[in-house]
């Protein structure tokens, strides 16, 4: 069953069509990789799904509820969470308080009380491996850990769909491996993941399905291996033709 659906979604910035009449659907429980060259409209798509930007046309549904007119906080309460392309943890707060803020809000209204939220916060810290750094202010962390904090904060809100905007970029190969297994474990715990990524190894490695965007339109869609072999994709995205033989 589709958990997230877009019909005819359009977003313009002045004369630029960032997203043009895009149809998409995300199945419950899957990891979808969203790739495409710079300016393809990937982050814009995250922004219109989460409500940071309003769409100019079309409809977006979470299950069968239309969400494209709702404010961002409302969409989060329904189960949509995200991370930012350029990391944005709450810099002045400790790792623990970052995650606690997420646990107090989001879909987890039942965590209204601090004690309840603290339990949830600890569970998430454990899950993402940040327990040892719980009392470190977020702005003292490495980029990799800041991305982890953002992921944890989003996770603490109890999302059904998690949109990860380049969580692997700027990481060392080891850190990419760690992040890949973290994303997989999050997915196994029942969260549907939309993964925007430039690190091919990561996105091809853990996505069950890949969607390729170019100039705000869908260029290709399918299994990672099939997409990787698609001529149009190779031309547009990798910028070179596969060598024959």
């Amino acid at each position, binding site marked *: 069953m589709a958990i997230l659906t877009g019909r005819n979604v359009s977003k313009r910035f002045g004369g630029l069509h960032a997203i043009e009449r895009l149809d998409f659907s995300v199945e419950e429980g899957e990891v979808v990789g969203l790739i495409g060259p710079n300016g393809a409209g990937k982050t814009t798509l995250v922004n219109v799904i*989460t409500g940071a930007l309003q769409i100019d046309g079309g409809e977006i549904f979470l299950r069968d509820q239309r969400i494209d007119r709702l*404010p961002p906080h409302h969409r989060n309460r329904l189960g949509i969470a995200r991370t930012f392309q350029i990391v*944005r943890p*709450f810099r002045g707060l400790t790792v623990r308080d970052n995650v606690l803020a997420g646990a107090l809000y989001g879909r987890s209204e039942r965590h209204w009380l601090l004690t309840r939220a603290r339990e949830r916060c600890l569970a998430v810290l454990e899950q993402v491996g940040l327990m040892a750094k719980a009392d470190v202010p977020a702005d003292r962390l490495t980029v990799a850990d800041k991305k982890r904090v953002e992921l944890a904060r989003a996770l603490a809100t109890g999302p059904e769909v998690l949109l990860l905007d380049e969580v692997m970029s700027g990481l060392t190969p080891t850190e990419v491996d760690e992040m890949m297994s973290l994303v997989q474990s999050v997915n196994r715990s029942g969260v549907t993941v939309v993964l925007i990524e430039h690190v091919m190894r990561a996105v091809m490695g853990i996505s069950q399905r890949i969607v390729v965007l170019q100039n705000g339109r869908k260029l290709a869609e399918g299994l990672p291996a099939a997409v990787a072999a698609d001529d149009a994709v190779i031309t547009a995205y990798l910028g070179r033709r596969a060598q024959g033989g």
Partner: protein
Amino acid sequence: MGGRRQRALAVAAAVLCLALALAAPFVVGRYTLRFLTSTLMFAGFAVSWNILGGLTGYFSFGHSVFFGIGAYAVAIGMVKAGLPFWVSLVASGLAAALFAVAIGLPVLRLRGHYFALVTLGIGEVVRGVVSNLTKLTGGGGGLSLPIFPGGVDTIYRAFYFMMLGTLLASLLVVYGLLHSRIGYGLVAIREDEDAAQMIGISTTAHKVLAFALSAMFFGVFGGIYAYWLTYIEPADVFDIKISVLSIIMTLLGGLGTLVGPLLGTICFQLLSEFLWNRLLEFHTAFLGALMIVIVLVFPRGFIDAARGGVRGAFRRTVANVRQFAE
């Protein structure tokens, strides 16, 4: 956090301060008591301004509006409507809070600097309106209130305890916020408003609530002040200095902390008490210089600065100057 021992120390210090504050009016002379009463009021300004400015990160330059509204609510309630003081005082808090909601709903959709500018403008507009509603407010001529019943010492003590009680209430509210869901929401907004929305925080509602709470206390202080002075006029109770001092004292002690604004006010009041009379001519220059020093040496208040010691303060100053130079 902080450990059990530290917490015990904090509680002991709070109890000691409270005991001193309760005993003071029976020990000190009238001049000192008057000074202490206004210090409590200023501390209340800083503590409650901090709810919006420090916790939420929205700098208001117009909080004198709420002070003035509160002062006029009590004056009009007592003089024109013949209500008892306590009823008028409740009305002053409500009026200030409602006015904050009315302007907060449209204006708090703006971010940062725009909000600060609008608050400046609103202060002037309201002062103008009050000055011209002559029938109700007495216009520029002001309003005289009845005198608090009782002997001189009773009056001095009564207003001292009213200010103390309101200050304690504001401290309790901030303490409660810092240890609750809403407080985390406010701090999240200060840290990154877009990210806060993305974790399900309805930012406008939170900001309006913080604004209303903060304004309510200014209103109540204004109401007590009006009865204390027994005479108010627009230029006095809508004075922008009320807003500016609230900001300076909060910055001095530490933005967004519980006791920072309180300590900032005490330092500021002691400084002015000892320096003011000698520096009467340089009054504003002194304020300006103080603001520059705060911003450069300890932009996060001296509680934070004290943790780093002198060397830390020096390093920070250099870093801050560099940052401003860029």
